[in-house]
């Protein structure tokens, strides 16, 4: 499944594509919202792993504007709930992720992203 929590960890890995290869841009997406159990400790613990700007920008592209530009210092419940929703409840079921640098397209079908490269694209 492609949720923003996973998307935030994915960079293009085509041979020689080492700069400006993150975050991948979503194209032609079909979204599904699926409720997930709210676990504030999990969300809080995951926060240091997150590239904040990439997450906010991607969420906005997908139509969710609930997250602030800057990561707040106070982690109140409203903020954590919004973050939980953005990270774990928005599922990209169909579409593609495109590298901003080399434009390689990673297709998503039935919620499964295909990160496989052709032989000549592998480092």
């Amino acid at each position: 499944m492609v949720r923003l929590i996973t998307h935030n960890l994915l960079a293009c890995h085509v041979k020689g594509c080492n700069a400006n290869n993150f975050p991948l841009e979503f194209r032609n997406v079909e979204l599904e919202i699926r409720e997930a159990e709210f676990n504030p400790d999990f969300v809080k613990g995951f926060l240091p792993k997150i590239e904040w700007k990439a997450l906010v920008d991607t969420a906005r592209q997908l139509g969710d504007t609930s997250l602030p530009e800057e990561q707040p210092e106070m982690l109140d419940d409203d903020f954590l709930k919004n973050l939980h929703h953005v990270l774990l409840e928005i599922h990209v079921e169909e579409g593609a992720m495109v590298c901003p640098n080399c434009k390689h397209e990673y297709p998503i079908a039935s919620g499964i992203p295909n990160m496989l490269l052709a032989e000549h694209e592998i480092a």
Partner: protein
Amino acid sequence: MIPTPDLSHLTSKDYNLVYEPAGPHLPLLDALEADLETLKGAEPRICLEIGSGSGCVSTFFARALVLLYICTDINPHANRATQATGRQNRRLQRRPGGIGGAWAGGWDGMEVTNKFLEQVEGLLSENGRFYLVALKQNNVPEIRERMLQRFQLKSEIVIERRAGREYLYILHTSGRDRHRVDMKMWHL
């Protein structure tokens, strides 16, 4: 003992296409279970499973430890099976989701092992732990030697056991470099 996940959605047809889990006593799961308290203490956030097959290892383990489980497999049937296993065991908080294989190329042990050794160090977080499932024919002493000589990764054999027709080893090593993956499982 972590309860066995429901695999009733997988049929013999699926098992022709993906690796069949050798019952509830998977050596990898036993190794993880034995380390459960240590793993919990390290407060991991992400588990990356490479070669997830039916998805049963991550699905089993997700019951013991709430993490982001990222499962990859080069085999598209395995991606679908992993996803289905996650959905079948729906009450999990963090269901494993499939990702299409990380590498193209041959699926013979050595080629894949070499790739992994080049990358494992950079992938693991400071307290990261890495488990490798290898077959006897993968030449485990040579793998360990290479990990040590070329990558300064000291490994230990935590389990070795016959499982069905195969003789399996579970190797364990810890990461030193800081990165974002905390736990990694790799099946050869």
